[in-house]
């Protein structure tokens, strides 16, 4: 019983965590709230769908079972690249004005939503492919080439190549997978491969495998991001820039590159969250919107700039949602006084649980306005 | 309690620690009514933190601040301001989107409740006060100019006028001559000097020429504590001060 509740809470919490992780990293490290985060998740979810269909092609059919794993990588790259584009075109101009960033990213989220409605997924995929090539091709050249005056021609021609590749691949996908060749505003469904369906029994309780899979995805994401930030050279650069932007610049770190990378990783994590979300229900243009406010609550409750805060807040909210929303308190304590049990019954739906949790968060903020784990010392200076 | 009764302001054993770093370390300082006091010290000596503690922006880890016999610890910034502590910031902080007159209106208006401000016209006496202040700072012609369009020196003076308009018993002035020309610096020194006597003024600055011109008692802060106090001449010959500013005497 208790285990059941705990599992459910952890399952809800891990969806929240994987969804909020990217948002919290970008907010914590760069001070930017990205309202298009939900739509980056949506892109991740659609990537899963597209990957699934492509793996149904005869050539890839034998590997169909592994498509979920592959789509995690794809989703990370797709959302990450769109995020990088977003940083380079919009966000960069608005550092230091967080409210303006909020509004601009909302505009981006509208465009992305309408994009998946009006553009056939095959050509959308093609566009993303050309973005990936266009952004990354120029970076493979040696520094010598980069510094030469003619580099802009190199850039230009790689974009031409990228667009060609995009159009071709879009056309290829459209002609081989008919479901992707037409635009549609309708929701689509991702079906889990056979090995992920059904339940596992642990300690006498049955747990759905998809939920377990999501917990694993979350766990891997958290571990990967922690390792990246703490062990890699770029992780060190990111941490340095966050803690002392000016000095990092003076030490030779290109803060511009760090910003792009940080935003790209945060966005990529949104894509991974999208894979998780696609396993839970149908995928539509609005799928991200359903999760984004939950993410905000996590960020507000967890405090800025601390992964631990995000983790605690996610699981805290997850467990609370389950306790309140499923009316579990009543089954744990059956003989509680009537007025109390009436109140609990009143809040015993998922949406009413949100109401209750919001009230609790507002009360909590009266005592700790900076969240569970406030960042100590120097704030993010961007 | 070791409270000096004829002092307007006294700081007793103030310690401020930011995550283990001691910004102020057992600082003691007291001011008589009507006194002009200059505070100097090397960078990082804790001068601005010292003002932050008095105005309620920073809560000290230890120690007491008494102003007119009342403790200031734990009071909100606006309450301390209403008690009669006015502050001028390091770089001039005037409301750039408001005109000179509107800036001054904000400072002279009392009572400072929303209801009073939205309901009532400004009192005639307060208008006269504004008129007077604009003459003092020589901005009568710019009455309807946005403060953002003033020159740096004019902004510094507008902020000093705003400070005066609050009619504080204690004026805390942080680097009033930063970025001013020599001439403006001298005028500012004279202005501040003329204010003391009636007002109690604390001036923080780096510019020694300026401090000398103030011709007042000087407190030297170093590493969060008062190193020495006295007239400019005493200070200049104090061995500890020379050490701080010049390093150890040459072997």
């Amino acid at each position, binding site marked *: 019983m208790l285990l059941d509740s705990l599992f459910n809470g952890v399952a809800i919490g891990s969806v929240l965590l994987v969804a909020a992780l990217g948002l919290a990293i970008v907010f914590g490290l760069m001070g930017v709230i990205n309202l298009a985060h939900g739509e980056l998740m949506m892109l991740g979810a659609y990537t899963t769908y597209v990957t699934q269909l492509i793996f149904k092609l005869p050539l890839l059919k034998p590997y169909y079972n592994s498509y979920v794993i592959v789509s995690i990588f794809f989703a990370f790259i797709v959302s990450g690249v769109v995020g990088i584009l977003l940083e380079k075109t919009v966000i960069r101009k608005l550092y230091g004005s967080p409210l303006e960033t909020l509004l601009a990213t909302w*505009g981006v989220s509208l465009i992305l939503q309408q994009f998946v409605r009006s553009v056939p997924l095959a050509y959308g995929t093609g566009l993303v492919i050309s973005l990936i090539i266009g952004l990354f091709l120029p970076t493979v050249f040696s520094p010598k080439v980069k510094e030469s005056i003619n580099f802009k021609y190199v850039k230009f021609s790689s974009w031409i190549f990228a667009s060609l590749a995009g159009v071709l691949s879009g056309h290829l996908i459209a002609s081989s997978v008919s479901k992707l060749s037409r635009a549609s505003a309708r929701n689509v469904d991702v079906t889990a491969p056979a090995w992920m369906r059904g339940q596992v029994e642990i300690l006498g309780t049955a747990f759905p495998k998809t939920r377990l899979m999501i917990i694993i995805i979350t766990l891997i994401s958290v571990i990967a991001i922690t390792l990246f930030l703490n062990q890699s050279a770029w992780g060190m650069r990111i941490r340095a820039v966050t803690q002392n932007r000016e000095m990092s610049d003076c030490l030779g770190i290109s803060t511009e590159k760090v910003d792009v990378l940080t935003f790209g990783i945060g966005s990529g994590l949104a894509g991974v969250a999208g894979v998780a979300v696609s396993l839970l229900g149908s995928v539509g243009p609005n799928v991200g919107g359903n999760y984004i406010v939950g993410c905000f609550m996590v960020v507000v409750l967890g405090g800025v700039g601390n992964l631990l805060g995000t983790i605690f807040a996610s699981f805290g909210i997850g467990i609370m949602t389950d306790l309140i929303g499923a009316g579990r308190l009543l089954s744990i304590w059956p003989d509680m006084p009537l007025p109390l049990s009436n109140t609990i019954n009143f809040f015993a739906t998922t949406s009413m649980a949100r109401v209750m949790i*919001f009230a609790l968060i507002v009360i909590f903020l009266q005592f700790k306005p900076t969240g569970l784990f406030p960042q100590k010392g120097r704030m993010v200076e961007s | 309690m070791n409270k000096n009764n004829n002092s307007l302001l006294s700081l007793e054993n103030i310690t401020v620690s930011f995550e283990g770093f001691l910004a102020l370390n057992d600082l003691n300082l007291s001011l008589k009514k009507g006194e002009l006091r200059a505070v100097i010290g090397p960078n990082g000596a804790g001068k601005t933190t010292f003002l932050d503690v008095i105005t309620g922006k920073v809560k000290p880890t230890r120690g007491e601040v008494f102003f007119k016999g009342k403790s200031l610890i734990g009071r909100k910034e606006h309450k301390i301001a209403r008690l009669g502590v006015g502050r001028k910031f390091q770089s001039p902080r005037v409301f750039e*989107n408001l005109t000179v007159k509107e800036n001054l209106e904000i400072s002279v208006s009392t009572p400072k409740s*929303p209801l009073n401000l939205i309901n009532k016209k400004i009192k005639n006496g307060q208008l006269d006060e504004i008129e007077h202040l604009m003459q003092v700072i020589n901005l009568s012609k710019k009455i309807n100019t946005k403060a953002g369009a003033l020159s740096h020196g004019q902004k510094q003076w507008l902020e000093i006028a*705003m400070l005066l308009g609050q009619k504080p018993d204690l004026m805390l002035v942080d680097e009033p001559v930063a970025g001013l020309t020599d001439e403006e610096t001298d005028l500012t020194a004279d202005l501040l000097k003329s204010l003391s006597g009636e007002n109690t003024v604390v001036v923080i600055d780096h510019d020694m020429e300026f401090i000398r011109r103030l011709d007042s008692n000087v407190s030297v802060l170093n590493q969060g504590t008062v190193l020495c106090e006295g007239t400019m001449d005493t200070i200049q010959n104090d061995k500890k001060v020379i050490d701080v500013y010049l390093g150890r005497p040459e072997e």
Partner: protein
Amino acid sequence: MEFKNLKLSKKTTLIIWVIIISFIIAAPSILPVFRLNLLGRYLSLAIVALGVDLIWGFTGLLSLGQGIFFALGGYCAAMYLQITSSSEFPNNIPEFFGLYGVDNLPFFWEPFRSPIFSLLAIWVIPALVAGMLGFLVFRNRIKGVYFSILTQAALLVFFNFFNGQQKLINGTNGLKTDVTQLFGQMVGSESMQRMFFWLTALIVVAAWFFSKWVVKGRFGNILIGIRDDEPRVRFTGYNPVLFKTIIFSIAGGLAGISGALYTVQSGIVSPQFMTVPFSIEMVIWVAVGGRGTLLGAILGAVFINYAKSLVSEALPASWMFIQGGLFILVVTALPEGVLGWVQGEGPRNLLQRFGLKRKIETYPSLEIKNKTEGLKNE
């Protein structure tokens, strides 16, 4: 936040008003009923936009939750209409209660039998809710994006709450008003709608005068002071929490009135009024019109909504693209909105503006201090 505060010159204001008023007077005779009704709705949205301008344009508080107060006003109006028109239904209570087996009017709806109470409730209740929410948030010096996302979370919470409560407020279905009666006439009737159009136009003008009065004198200057340099206001002896709470409450009240007028003209109030996109749109009306100008809020609300309905009819799919693009364009290229642009040196600097030049921060260290202060206080 850095932006210039513009005061529209008397002449510009007058010209714009003459255009607006002559258009309003002419509208009933030139527009077909359907369009007139739309125009009436958009005019009512101008009132909530005025509130957004007060809190965002003047005070720097970006609320993404004005839909809460808008909907509350709408619910108050709709419930009054339903109760007064419920004589033919069982138990003399609105019809929908019967569907969920509710026999008695829930106690909190009881006062809505009184027209005077209802008329007051339309703006007092949203104002109170806004005031309470605002006070709890401002008291802890929560501001900037934190404030914005908290208001957005609050919006979603209210949405969930209203969506889930069938027995009390008819949940997802909302409350209809077009089949109710007022003064013996159907609210949805043409003559009644014409009347509401005039009423809305009148209230828009009144709300503008009221907002103008609020921001005109010293009170308004303090709001601008809070927006530009809140600590400085505090050190001058003012308590920003009070000012912010009051202005947020005023904006809530305006939103309530706006919601009520919108409801009677659209014929229904439902939790849809509390969706996230709608509340953010309110902000963009103001941004496009020109924040801190009041008139810009009115123009922005009316024109964008009109454009929206025209574009949506012609090319249904493209409105989202246009709107999204508008958000990005206004924020990056026209931070002072259309009115600000016209009033300022916009037309001359057209090209330069599209070069997206960044303003130089005047006192970087000071601005960073301000920005971080909200998060760092203890």
